[in-house]
């Protein structure tokens, strides 16, 4: 694969060229929280401050709030107004952990039923990955098979080599996008070597480790250990922060906003951490907090791998950074008992 490169100061020109035909999304803090937002056309300051966004990249495909359709009741019946088709766009700067997360949850939206909203967004988006240069101390991606400075889950991968980015064309979609960009040059062997060293160096910067060997089996073995799970869940306050901001969480709720002759159907993020998540007319099987906490851990590290052969976690560390009580998944998983509890 021939690699290309671009000088960091030409990034603005590159994005500008693309934004003539497509909408470009970049890391932004304009709204008061870091997230992927529409590029304002000139500011590339994010290249300085960007480590990772608080709002994960999944919000570009499964937004916190999405209008599905609206309807009106006229004299001749109901009229549906579908949401407009997704316009073509670029998400520039997605980190390898968030990009891997998209691949992990793709299955949920395409398996037995193709979710038109999600799929159309995925189809019409070019993902441009950006290598990490400064992982957080809460990142643990390397333990889950994700490398902070390389990714095959994007269409183009930009690797930081000091004043320039090395560009790898991963998919045809990415190749096509890059073809017309004049500010992009061919990379040299020296550039390739520099990138290789950089990739290894950044991987070594991820200090938090998680041993996932046999984690599914271990969790299966202690599933009925109520005492263990009660202790694990003790300080959790059952908010939704870890799940809503997790790039591999995908639960959503659908509800209608109705008025006399019209309405709108929305889809919005939901969390298994909420006490009413499993509320049914007759009962709530996960009313007790320890059951919800157990569910979250086991879903990500036992059930999902059982069904899809991949752990539903990419080690982005958001749950650790943002938890109000510093509940730490890496500590929990390290403490899972190795043997089944003695029969009482």
């Amino acid at each position, binding site marked *: 694969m021939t690699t290309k490169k671009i000088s960091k100061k030409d990034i603005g020109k590159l994005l500008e060229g693309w934004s003539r035909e497509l909408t470009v999304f970049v890391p932004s803090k304009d709204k008061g929280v870091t997230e992927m937002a529409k590029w304002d056309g000139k500011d590339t300051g994010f290249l300085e401050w960007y480590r990772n966004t608080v709002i994960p990249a999944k919000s570009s495909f499964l937004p916190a*709030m999405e209008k599905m359709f609206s309807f009106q009741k006229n004299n001749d019946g109901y009229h549906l107004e579908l949401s407009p088709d997704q316009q073509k766009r670029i998400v520039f700067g997605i980190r390898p952990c968030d990009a891997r997360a998209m691949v992990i949850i793709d299955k949920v939206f395409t398996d037995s039923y193709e979710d038109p909203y999600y799929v159309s967004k995925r189809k019409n988006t070019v993902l441009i990955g950006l290598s990490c240069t400064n992982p957080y101390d809460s990142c643990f991606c390397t333990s889950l098979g994700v490398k902070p400075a390389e990714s095959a889950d994007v269409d183009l991968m930009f690797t930081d080599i000091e004043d320039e980015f090395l560009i790898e064309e991963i998919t045809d979609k990415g190749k096509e996008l890059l073809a017309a960009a004049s500010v992009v040059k061919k990379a040299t062997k020296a550039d390739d070597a520099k990138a290789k060293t950089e990739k290894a160096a950044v991987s070594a910067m991820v200090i938090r480790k998680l041993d996932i060997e046999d984690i599914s089996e271990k969790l299966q073995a202690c599933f009925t250990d109520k005492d263990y799970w009660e202790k694990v869940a003790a*300080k959790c*306050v059952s908010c939704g922060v870890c799940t809503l901001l997790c790039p591999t969480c995908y639960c959503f709720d659908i*509800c209608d906003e109705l008025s006399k002759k019209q309405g709108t159907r929305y889809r919005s*993020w939901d969390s298994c951490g909420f006490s009413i998540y499993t509320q049914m007319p007759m009962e709530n099987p996960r009313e007790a907090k320890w059951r919800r906490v157990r569910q979250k851990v086991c879903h990500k590290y036992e059930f999902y791998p059982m069904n899809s052969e991949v752990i539903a976690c990419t080690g982005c560390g958001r749950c650790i950074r943002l938890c109000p009580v*510093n509940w730490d998944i890496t500590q929990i998983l390290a403490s899972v008992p190795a043997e089944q509890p003695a029969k009482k």
Partner: protein
Amino acid sequence: MEQELRKEARKLLEEGKVDYIIGFAPGSLKFSTTPLITEEKEEIASLVINSFVVNNLAKFLTEVPGRIGIVAKGCDSRSIVSLIQDNRIARENVIIIGVPCSGLIDIVKVEKLVGKDRDEIDDIALQGEKVAVTVGGGKTELPTKEALFDNCLSCEFPTPQEYDILIGEPINATCNRELGQEKMKELEGMTPERRWEFWKHQFSRCIMCYACRQVCPACFCEQCFVEETEPQWVLPVPKWQDNLIFQVIRNIHVAGRCTDCGECERVCPVNIPLRSLTKKMYGLVNEMLNYKAGTDKNAPPLMTAYEHEEAKDLIR
């Protein structure tokens, strides 16, 4: 002080006076602590007191069963008293281990002032009037006033008013009630339209994670009004209108029980300035009804009490 705390907590467990101890243990990230809820004597050794013990542990009193020994800063002890006033916990089931507090360091403020994230900072040490921040070998000194949480700046009760055991010496309130009010005063100076636009903008990024509600000791309803479906007051969709209504009603519902501890603003993942609301409500309750949450365990809860003559100018 930590040694004394551990000694007392251990004694409580050994003498069987409590079933659980709730306190702070070191967190897994730099400059963080995490709640410790334990019945094991061995775990008491990990109890800590430092400038980062942010959580309001009173929240756990409505969940953890039995008799509890709880570590409480000034603001936390008032939340505990508030819960006693509301009859959510019985005074005899709680042993309050009071810890006088001279203020906690707001890591977000420090990050902004030194231009580095917390995992890039080597050390932060509170040294009286100064906070020493070490980054990569180099030391910066910040005035303490700029590094503490806003509500610590105007703290009226640094020493718990209600306690069974006091760790260390009482601290007198020397903080200026006017400090930490800049955001609120700024809002009060705007026109109503500007204010509404401000809040509309803030609540556009709320994702309805309910972290603010969940960490609040005063929010102990078994079914929150947002979970009501017949009738449905707010949709579970994070539209700014519903986010705003949720927060406004939440503030009104906890009025008189909110001690302005600031946890709601600290935990908000999208940085909504919630204390500009709680602080205002706290001030209104004080001005209009001469009441401060959690200062008198025998007082009736604010919203169930009444004077025969009041609010004359508002309702005729």
